[in-house]
């Protein structure tokens, strides 16, 4: 399953502390990139669907991030909420020459990005 993807270099991975996240402007979106303790990366939309909380300020573990405002939890891999909120969008992220590279799917978003599952609407 391939699809058009616009990738953006958003900053040095060294500037992203392990166990934390930072928010980056990626194309038109703002994306929170997490650097988990095992070194792997996750990228999700930076704005909480519940009430606009700053997801990059949340506490995360290997699976979820908890929004700092009302403690709703979201799966970092799928973006799905575990507490009945709409999902976060998930973005592909990788490192290239020490730089964070985040992809914004230009098309076929739903089958490229789990969680942004088309029909869920504002569930």
């Amino acid at each position, binding site marked *: 399953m391939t699809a058009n993807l616009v990738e953006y270099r958003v900053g040095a991975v060294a500037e992203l502390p392990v166990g934390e996240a930072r928010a980056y402007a990626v194309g038109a979106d703002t994306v929170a990139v997490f650097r988990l303790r095992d070194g792997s990366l996750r990228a999700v939309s930076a704005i909480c669907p519940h009430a606009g909380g700053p997801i990059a300020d949340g506490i995360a573990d290997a699976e979820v991030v908890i929004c700092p405002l009302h403690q709703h939890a979201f799966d970092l891999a799928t973006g799905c909420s575990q507490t009945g909120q709409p999902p976060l969008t998930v973005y592909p992220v990788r490192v290239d020459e020490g730089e964070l590279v985040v992809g914004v799917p230009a098309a076929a978003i739903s089958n490229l990005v789990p969680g942004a599952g088309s029909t869920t*609407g504002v569930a």
Partner: protein
Amino acid sequence: MERLVVIGNGMAGARAVEEILERGGRDRFTITMFGEEPYGNYNRILLSNVLSGVEDEAGIFLNSLPWYEENGIALRAGVRVERIDRFARVVRADDGSITPYDTLVIATGSRPYVPPIEGMHHPRRGYHQGVFTFRTIDDTRAMIRYARDHERVVVIGGGLLGLEAARGLQQYGVQVTLLHSAATLMNAQLDAQAGTILRRSVEHLGITVEVGARTAAVVGKDRVEGVRLADGRAIPCDMVVVAAGIRPNVEVAALSGLPVERAILVDDHMRVLDEPHIYAVGECVQHRGQTYGLVAPLWEQAKVLADQVTGRDRTAAYHGSRTATKLKVAGVDVAAMGLTTPEHDDDEFVVFAEPRRGVYKSVIIRDDRLIGATLLGDVSKVGFLMQAFDRGLPLPEERVRLLFDLGGPAAEESAAELDDGAQVCNCNGVSKGALVSTVHSGVKTLGGVMDATRAGKGCGSCKSLVAQIVEWAAGGAVEEDPSATWYVPGVPMDKPALMAAIRAKGLKSVSAVFDALAGGREDAKSKMGLVSLLRMMWGEEYQDERGARFINDRVHANIQRDGTFSVVPQMKGGVTTPAQLRRIADVADKYQVPMVKLTGGQRIDLLGIRKEDLPKVWADLDMPSGYAYGKSMRTVKTCVGSEFCRFGVGDSTALGIAIESRFQGLESPGKMKLAVTGCPRNCAEAYVKDLGVVAVDGGRWEIYVGGAAGAHVRKGDLLATVDSPDEVITLTGRFLQYYRENANWLERTYSFVPRVGIGRLRALLVDDSEGLATGLEERMTAAVAAYKDPWKEGADPATPGQFRTALPLLPLPRVPVREGGQA
């Protein structure tokens, strides 16, 4: 694959789909669910708990979004179906979509009935400002928001909903008046005497009840100012909640030409009359002339519907439900079934009433069969009664045994008595059999069984029965819920064990704790509590991991609803100087601070500061942090005391400042808010602080602990009366350290002190009965020595981008790499 479309994602719709999936529906249907509410499926019953604050919204969702995805269900939440085309077999929704079906299920439920009362509506905005109904999450949120800053609410309707609303709203400090047009409360379920007793119990809760009160009008020009009764009486209020009953949602069905009377007509197969492809279930259906307003019948309907839709059992038929209700209403247990009053002269009518205790029990027997029962306040016998009612079981000769367990081990009896089919939890439709098999499958804790089956997670009235059954099924081998005692959910240890292990293994960072004690499994929910504990235990040796901290503690400020922060500089004892005030004023100007506010903690809050400005703001303020953001020592409020006040008998200001200087910034399981007041007039509110000091005649000081005046109000317990400020500081140090070391995470002193007991605290901390004092003081001294003003971090950030915005404010430089390519 056949296409199954469900209109209504409420309790009946979702349950029907669950039953269909259980019968292999996953392989047979592609399922689409329309739900007008923009959410997943939640337990409507629990809205009462959300309103009363005992449950949070997150806790009441039944099926998470992943559940829909896993089961291949396309959830169209926030989308309303407007029309069914029975001939083309499609539904048209308000988003313009047209969805074809082979089988259609209608589960549109009900909506609140709002009687035609003058002034209820407002020409421009639907309801009049301040008028609410109680049916959905959104209704509940709106009520909570409004109740917070209003004083008097009138609830119209003395049935289940009205009583629940009245009780719930009390939590927000509003005065509640309940208006009921009938002569007694819950007259649909209760006979007059029971209704009268219920009224007493409700009034004891501080709710004003007016029966026989018909509301004629809602008065007030652009916001509610009161209601007028038919008898002319006027009741002032600034909020009105209408709970006058429900009406089935049948518009769509009627509009689409389906047979509708009071509700949608269905046959014994839950099929809409003369409609081979359309079924209906829940409050929107009328079966054999009956409509239902409680969940129990829905579960039975959903099963039959699923058997028919999947063809699993074509003989399955719904014969109507004998409405036996078991509820907790406004904290009072209520059970009712069948008749409420005898009809024939030879009906046996056995009644027991004890109004003072709010207990009422009655049974009605005809030809040796139970045809009606009412239980109020004590529903211990409901299990047997419901069955006797359902199945016409033989009744004990001594009728009084129907009302009481006369001798004999009550618990076992009623648990054993029940047969497997008996429904224990009406809210979630869980049978005794389901509970028993869960226990036998190895779940041996009450909490575990409740999680697995959802039993007891509704109105809660069946919890005790569930507990009895679990106990009985486990043959006494019930295990305590271990996790209940854990310090944090992610590490299976209570606080003493955890501290011992941490010390033994020398674990100084949060990840070290997860690695050593949780099998390497991190848990976000546990991090904040662990940070606090480790900092308390290791002081300067603690190895910081910023990501483990809550955002407030990462940037030493309190996050606000809009993602900005608030800055509260330290102002010891609430005493400040012109120079400080000037600096604060300059900062407020320079950074255009949206709000400068005096806090309830006697200092000044600069609200709405952008994260990236925090370091500059701190530098310009050049004042230490007031720790208004942390689970830590917050403030020591003082009054002017003997220095100025003509009544002052002690220098409360000086002592307050001394205490705050010594214990400033100490992290703790919960916030520590102190006060010192110069005389028993208590202007600094010392009686209601975590630790409060009151100067009394003769140069002596009283020390109160465990007080509170927040979400919970409690007068502190007197720990000791001492002769000098030094002794106050010593005992304060001992108490705070003992609290830091022994309280559970987020356990404020108002629960900690009663838990340990003031007597024991006096013995340990004042009389030093177990020789702990020296140790406590040493460890406290070390902690005090480790104090660093966190705002100094502004100068050199702890991590890169520590103060970078997390909000989509300023776009950052970005370089597109390439187009196309693969994911």
